[in-house]
């Protein structure tokens, strides 16, 4: 069975849910959660690009010949996603700190309907 379409569509759906969260509200926490969902979708998609039919987990647990085709999936996207997850944690931490700063200044987490912004937009 080919897993590529199923996982790819799930990844795109996660990305789409995140995008909807970004567009449909003005709550800062909602935006941070939405960006986290979009990141997850992108990570799933990146890992999927390393998949190949019958590929093993990229950990050497048995002897294999280096002259024939590689028995493993492509390990490069997995390694990149490892980095991506850690960087995502860092950006989320910083974004949450900025959300606290916004709540201190305005008393809530709603964003974008301030009168001074409306003046700038007009």
């Amino acid at each position, binding site marked *: 069975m080919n897993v590529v379409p199923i996982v*790819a569509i799930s990844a795109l759906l996660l990305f789409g849910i995140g995008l909807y969260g970004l567009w449909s509200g003005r709550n800062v926490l909602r935006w941070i959660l939405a960006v986290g969902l979009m990141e997850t979708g992108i990570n799933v998609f990146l890992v999927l690009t390393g998949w190949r039919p019958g590929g093993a*987990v*990229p*950990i050497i647990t048995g*002897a294999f010949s280096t002259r024939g085709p590689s028995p493993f999936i492509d390990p490069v996207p997995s390694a990149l996603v490892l980095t991506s997850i850690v960087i995502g944690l860092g*950006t989320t931490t910083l974004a949450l*700190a900025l959300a*606290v700063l916004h709540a201190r200044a305005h008393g809530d987490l709603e964003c974008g309907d301030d009168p001074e912004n409306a003046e700038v937009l007009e």
Partner: protein
Amino acid sequence: MNKLLAVFVSAGVVALLGVFLLTGPARDQLFSGRSELGDAFSRRDVRGPAPDQVGPGSRGLESAPANTVTAIVLDYRGFDTLGEVTVLFAAVAGAGLVLFARRRRGQAVSARRPSLILTAAAPWVFLFLFVVGFAIALHGHLTPGGGFPGGALLAAGLVLLLSATGREPSARRLHLLEGLAGFSFVAVGVAGLVWKGSFLAHFGDSGVLGDFWSAPVTMLLYLIIALKVSAELANAVRTLAHVEDPTTKEAP
């Protein structure tokens, strides 16, 4: 109205992305199942030819960890991981800077009395998290995991224990641990520069692939990363525990 627009826009973007990524030339590129570089990493022959057979028991490979992802993250692209740890540090330091531009002292705001369940369970859960965290970090060259999830478990245990006892971690000690870990990472890199001629090159006998005592430099680096990540995360939790709740402050 606004929500309907959001539904249409996000569905449209997802449909466009799906058509672009899952049909046509982009799909052939992304899901071709071919990867010269990835296969070279898997075979361990990026810098030179590997032996005909690679498996548990192989000696003298150019990168010793049995876990290929670990080999990429800490050996082939170790410098990139140093940058990654630096970004994590910058993010946590930035959060502290944004929240406490002025120096603040005093108790954590949410210092409620811990419940009986928390105080009774905390030592045992801490012990479990401590052992599992170090085990995951030290087996990073053999199994999935490594220093980042191991460090997260250590930080969780530390925060749990301290919230059960009602005390808070000393910022000075956390900063000292973090600084020492960062310094050790660079020191390991400089040792590689001195002995092997390039920064973060792995020195010493790499051992037998698949053994616990193989890839000693990888093990050391993952231990350093686990300590650094645990100090950083515990520090982030400590910072957030000092934030007063701004939404309830102005309530009548």
